[in-house]
C-alpha cells in the first residue's frame, strides 16, 4: 500500500523526468508507460529482444573465436566452462527465436487491423524488410558454431546464392571454411545489425508503448525456456567425415520442405518466397479503401489466413516425411511429391476463400468495425484482489530463495537459469499487480 504523500512525491519525480525528457530529440513523450494491449506493441517487444541480443552478443564475443577449426570448441567452452556462459548463450539463442516469433505475430496483427495504409505504408514496408533481415541475421548467427548443421546450412546458403548468380556464391564462400566463418561473423555482428538499426529508426511509429511488467515477463520467459530447452552444441564439423540427415532451425524448415519437393532451386528458394513477400509489400497499394479497420473482405481475409496456415503447414512439413505424419527416419522419407505438396497449398487457399466468402455474405462472420484507439486496456483490478495477488507473487519469489529449484533434482544444467526466470516472472507479476492496485 502506498502512502498518499509518497504517491505525490513519486508523481512529482516522474513528472520532472517526463518534462525534461520531453526536451530531448527522440524520447519526447512518445513513450507511453501505461498498460496497453500487448498485441498492439509486439514490435516493441521484438525490438527489446534486439537490444538484449546486442548485449548478450557482445558478451559472447569476448570468448567466441571466429576461426573454422576453433569456433566449435570456443562455443563449447562458453557453454560448458565459462561461468554463466551457458546462460548467456541460451539467452542469445532464445531471444533470437522470440524476436522472430514476435515479428511474425506483429505482422499478422497489423495485417488484420489493416494498419498498413493511410500514411502507414513506409512503416509497413520497412517492417517487412527488417523482418527479413532478422531471419538472415539469425541464420548468420547459427552457422557461427561450425557444427554439422551449421556446415549444411552454409552449403545450402551458398547453393541458393549460386542459383541466383555465381558471383554471389563466391562472395559468400571465399576460398575456405575459414573465409566463410569470418564473412558470416562480419555480417552477423556488424553489417546486418547496422542496417537493422537504420531501418528501426525509420520503422518506429510516433507512439511507442513500454510496458515494464510485460517486458519483464518476456525476459523471464527467455530464462525459463533457456533453462528447460537449452540449445545443444550438436556434432562438431570435421572436413571429410560422413554427413547425415539434419533438419535446420525451425524458421528455415519451410524452405527445407520446399527444396525437398525437387522443384527447381531458384523457383522454390527465391521466386516463391519473393512472391509471398511481395503480396504483403503491395497490399497497402491494393487496399486503398478508406474507413477504419473494416475487415470485411474475403480476399483480405484469405490472404491473411492462408498465409498463416501455409507458414505453419510448410514449417511443420520440414520436420516430417513426405506424408506429413511420420517423422523422417531414412533417406527415402526426404523426397516430397510436389503435386501433393503444392496441391494442398492451393486447395487450402481456395477453400479458405470460399468459406470466407460464404460466411461474410451470410453475415455469419460479422464485419467488424473497429473503433479508433483500442490500445488501452482496463487493467484495474479490485484493490483487495490485486493486493492478494501481489502478495502471492512476492511469496513465490521468496520461496524460490528458500527452496532453490536446482537443489531438488540433481545435475541438470538449466535449472538455475529456469529458477532465475521464475523469479523474474514473479517480479513481473508483482509489478503488474502493484500497478493494478494503485
Amino acid at each position, binding site marked *: 500500500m502506498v502512502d498518499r504523500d509518497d504517491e505525490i512525491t513519486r508523481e512529482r519525480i516522474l513528472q520532472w523526468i517526463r518534462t525534461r525528457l520531453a526536451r530531448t530529440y527522440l524520447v519526447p513523450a512518445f513513450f507511453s508507460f501505461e498498460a496497453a494491449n500487448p498485441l498492439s506493441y509486439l514490435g516493441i517487444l521484438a525490438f527489446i529482444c534486439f537490444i538484449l541480443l546486442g548485449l548478450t552478443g557482445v558478451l559472447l564475443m569476448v570468448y567466441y573465436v571466429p576461426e573454422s577449426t576453433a569456433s566449435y570448441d570456443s562455443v563449447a567452452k562458453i557453454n560448458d566452462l565459462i561461468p554463466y556462459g551457458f546462460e548467456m548463450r541460451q539467452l542469445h539463442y532464445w531471444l533470437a527465436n522470440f524476436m522472430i516469433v514476435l515479428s511474425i505475430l506483429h505482422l499478422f496483427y497489423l495485417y488484420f487491423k489493416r494498419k498498413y495504409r493511410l500514411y502507414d505504408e513506409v512503416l509497413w514496408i520497412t517492417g517487412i524488410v527488417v523482418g527479413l533481415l532478422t531471419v538472415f541475421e539469425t541464420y548468420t548467427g547459427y552457422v557461427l558454431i561450425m557444427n554439422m548443421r551449421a556446415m549444411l546450412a552454409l*552449403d545450402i546458403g551458398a547453393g541458393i546464392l549460386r542459383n541466383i548468380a555465381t558471383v554471389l556464391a563466391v562472395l559468400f564462400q571465399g576460398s575456405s571454411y575459414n573465409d566463410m566463418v569470418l564473412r558470416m561473423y562480419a555480417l552477423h555482428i556488424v553489417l546486418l545489425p547496422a542496417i537493422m538499426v537504420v531501418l528501426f529508426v525509420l520503422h518506429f511509429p510516433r507512439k511507442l508503448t513500454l510496458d515494464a511488467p510485460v517486458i519483464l515477463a518476456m525476459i523471464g520467459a527467455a530464462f525459463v525456456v533457456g533453462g528447460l530447452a537449452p540449445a545443444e552444441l550438436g556434432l562438431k564439423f570435421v572436413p*571429410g567425415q560422413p554427413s547425415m540427415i539434419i533438419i535446420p532451425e525451425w524458421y528455415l524448415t519451410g524452405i527445407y520442405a520446399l527444396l525437398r519437393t525437387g522443384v527447381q532451386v531458384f523457383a522454390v528458394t527465391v521466386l516463391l518466397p519473393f512472391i509471398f513477400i511481395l503480396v504483403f509489400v503491395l497490399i497497402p497499394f491494393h487496399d486503398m479503401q478508406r474507413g477504419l479497420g473494416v475487415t470485411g473482405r474475403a480476399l483480405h481475409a484469405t490472404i491473411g489466413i492462408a498465409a498463416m496456415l501455409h507458414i505453419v503447414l510448410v514449417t511443420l512439413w520440414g520436420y516430417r516425411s513426405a506424408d506429413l505424419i511420420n517423422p523422417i527416419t531414412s533417406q527415402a522419407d526426404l523426397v516430397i511429391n510436389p503435386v501433393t505438396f503444392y496441391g494442398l497449398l492451393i486447395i487450402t487457399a481456395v477453400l479458405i476463400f470460399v468459406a470466407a466468402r460464404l460466411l461474410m455474405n451470410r453475415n455469419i462472420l460479422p464485419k467488424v468495425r473497429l473503433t479508433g484507439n483500442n490500445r488501452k486496456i482496463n487493467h484495474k483490478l479490485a484493490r483487495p484482489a490485486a493486493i492478494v495477488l501481489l502478495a502471492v507473487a512476492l511469496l513465490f519469489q521468496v520461496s524460490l530463495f528458500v527452496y532453490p529449484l536446482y537443489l531438488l533434482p540433481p545435475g541438470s544444467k538449466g535449472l538455475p537459469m529456469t529458477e532465475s526466470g521464475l523469479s523474474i516472472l514473479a517480479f513481473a507479476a508483482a509489478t503488474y499487480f502493484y500497478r493494478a492496485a494503485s
Partner: protein
Amino acid sequence: MSGLTVLAALMPYGEFLSYGSKPKIERKKIANISDLKPHSAIIFQWPTETHPYHTNLLIRGREGVGMGRKGDLYAYNRVCTHLQCLLNYDSNNDQIICPCHGSVFAGKDGNVVNGPARKPLPTIELEEEENGDIYAVKIVGEFGYGR
C-alpha cells in the same frame, strides 16, 4: 556517364572478396590401395584442404570399368549438384546419396539416379602406380557444381 566510368573502374575491386577461389590443381597422392577394402569408400580433400567444395569420394567398387590397375577405382566430387550438401557412399547399393534433400547418384558413373539433383557429379581422374599409391590428377566438371 562520368559516374558509370567510375563504377566500371571500381568493378575489379570485387576481387577483394574472391581471393583464392580459383585454386591450382596439382597431381597429388590421396591414398594407397591397401587403405581401401573392396566395396568401400574413403573421403579425401583435394586439391586444397580448406575449400568447402574440395571434398571428394574415392570408391573401390566393381572391377573392370573404373580407373586404376584393376579398373575398380571411382572418384567423384562429394558435393551434391542440387544444393551443395555433402554426399555419403552407400556400399550396399553402390550409390552416392545426399542426406539433405534425397538425391541419389550411381557409384559406377556419378549420374543422377533419383531426387532433385539434375547434373551428374564431377569425376576425378585417378592414376594408380605399381606400389598401389593412388593419385588424383584432374577433375572433369567443376567442384561443387557438377559435370
